């Protein structure tokens, strides 16, 4: 008796499930006004962002209180009750001179972002004015064979972003030019692969800082007589050297692991060695090469900040470092702004590479 009851129940459940499935199928037919997908696509990410900002705000608040208490206690211990009361009043009034220095709140970061944008507007207006002012003089100087006068003022935050992008692209191109041809050569010949493997394995894990120092040693000597921008050269070469390994390894792997069927086709069609490489081996390893290039670009961007910071090369990295050294009241929030900008640009670069990767790949299944 009992058994039959349970059987009935499961059947009921099944029916209910089937009905549900039918309903959800009906819903899918009208996707535009489907609340569920709308909620999934927009509301949930939105809520998660709000949650993140809320947590950040509360954390910043708590740290602020700890720092403020410490300041008051210190004033009390060092100078007595009056000083402590003055300090508390000062902190409460929001006066810049006595603000506790800790993790900035989201509002402060947003304010700093606006400050940076405003600063950029001021600087670019300044630049434009300078250009207009010197236009006539520069023409004259060029005609006389002298170098034109250039703007030497402080770069704005946005300028720093573009300098960083320039450096990372120079590094990426360098990595591409070194890693892809060498990867192909290594992939084609097993002897070469075996003889270079130890070198790759040893140099791959070397820290960006060490690469920077190595490049510094060489470039410093080589650019002694020229007045070229050695900081830029050092940083982009270091970025390229750090980031090229992923492409090198992936290219070598792609080239060496071409499907045997394709090699047989090349043999049966009697393709020459060069044609075999360009018509069969390279196209079939393109997806892997691009996976490598995508990793290379993201590594290059990550490493760039650290390298700029150390090489004193202008860019986002040195911006962060200068703000940290600066210790002004809004330095911390500017650093956080830079952090977000770095993250967003890194994300965009990765998306661009993914799009290119999907365009060249013949099996169209590259995912995030």
């Amino acid at each position, binding site marked *: 008796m009992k058994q039959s009851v349970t059987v009935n129940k499961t059947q009921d459940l099944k029916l209910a499930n089937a009905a549900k499935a039918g309903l959800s199928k009906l819903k899918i037919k009208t996707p535009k006004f489907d609340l569920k997908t709308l909620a999934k696509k927009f509301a949930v990410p939105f809520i998660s962002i709000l949650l993140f900002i809320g947590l950040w705000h509360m954390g910043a608040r708590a740290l602020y209180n700890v720092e403020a208490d410490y300041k008051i206690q210190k004033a009390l211990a060092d100078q007595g009750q009056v000083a402590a009361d003055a300090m508390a009043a000062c902190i409460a009034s929001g006066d810049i001179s006595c603000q506790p220095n800790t993790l900035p709140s989201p509002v402060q970061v947003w304010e700093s972002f606006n400050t940076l944008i405003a600063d950029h507007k001021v600087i670019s207006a300044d630049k434009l004015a300078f250009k207009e002012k010197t236009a006539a003089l520069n023409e004259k100087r060029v005609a006389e064979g002298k170098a034109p006068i250039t703007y030497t003022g402080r770069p704005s935050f946005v300028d720093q972003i573009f300098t960083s992008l320039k450096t990372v692209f120079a590094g990426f191109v360098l990595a591409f030019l070194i890693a892809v041809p060498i990867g192909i050569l290594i992939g084609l010949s097993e002897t070469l692969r075996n003889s270079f493997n130890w070198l790759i394995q040893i140099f791959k894990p070397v820290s960006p800082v060490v690469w920077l120092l190595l490049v510094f040693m060489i470039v410093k000597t080589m650019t002694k007589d020229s007045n070229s921008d050695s900081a830029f050269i050092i940083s982009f070469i270091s970025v390229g050297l750090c980031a090229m390994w992923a492409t090198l390894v992936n290219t070598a792997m792609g080239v060496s692991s071409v499907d045997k*069927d*394709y090699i*047989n*086709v090349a*043999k*049966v*069609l*009697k*393709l020459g060695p060069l044609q075999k490489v360009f*018509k*069969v081996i390279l*196209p*079939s390893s*393109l997806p892997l090469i691009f996976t490598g290039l995508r990793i290379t670009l993201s590594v290059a961007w990550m490493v760039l900040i650290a390298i700029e910071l150390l090489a004193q090369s202008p860019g986002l990295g040195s911006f962060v470092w200068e703000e940290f050294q600066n210790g002004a009241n809004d330095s911390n929030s500017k650093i956080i702004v830079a952090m977000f900008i770095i993250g967003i640009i890194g994300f965009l670069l990765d998306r661009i590479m993914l799009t290119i990767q999907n365009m060249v790949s*013949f*099996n169209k299944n590259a995912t995030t």
Partner: protein
Amino acid sequence: MAYLELKNVNKTYGEGKNATEVLTDINLTMKEGEFVAIVGFTGSGKTTLVNLINGLLKPTSGEVLFKGEPVVDTSHERGVIFQNYSLLPWLSVGQNVAMAVKEAFPNEKRKFVKERVEQYVEMVNLSPAISKRPKELSGGMRQRVAVARALAMNPEMIIMDEPLGALDALTRGNLQDEILKIWSKDKRTALLITNDVDEGLYMADRIIPLRPGPKATLGPEFKIDIERPRDKTELNDNLVYKRTRNAIIEYLMGIGEERKATSKEVYELPELAPKSFVA
């Protein structure tokens, strides 16, 4: 002089202790214009045999002679249709065929290549799909592209390695007819490797069974004296067809029995009983 001749061919993979002898003592002679089918079980070394003949592999001992010359490399004279199509996935149908045409006729102009590609794609009824990638095609369509690619090179001999193995019965029948049509038109020499006795009987002049490997070797040949063009439905009532078919199947069954008899290993099964949930 024989057109294609295999003399005491042996093929061993690996060396020393790990050596496995795949093919032993293969002897085969083919005349020009002949259609020969080799029928064998899966895993009996059929693909190895094909690769020996088309030049992708070299025999460990013995000789493969093509028009009296030993086969040392692949050649445009021998077109191959691979078992798994082997189309290049990043090229369209037309580009796949064009690649072969350009290799076979290196001195011809672009216009010639284009026309020839269109002609052969048309021949396998794929003109509407000429700019599609292999991934967008069905299995039968891909195999037709492979046929077009092999034939567009104008080979003297066509080597087919289970070309229709992965296709459904209807597509298979259509493609069999298409291949036969092409073969009879220019009287090329054709070697078909298959695991389907009926396919061999329908298409070939001779059927030679390949005894299963390791140490696979060719069995006695069966001549198929049925007039061409053959009709599939009438074939079923043809006495010669019935007799040959029975003989071949009997022979293959015999091999199967032998195979079973040679494996004397006893597998002890563990004593297991399904768990009772009611108790």
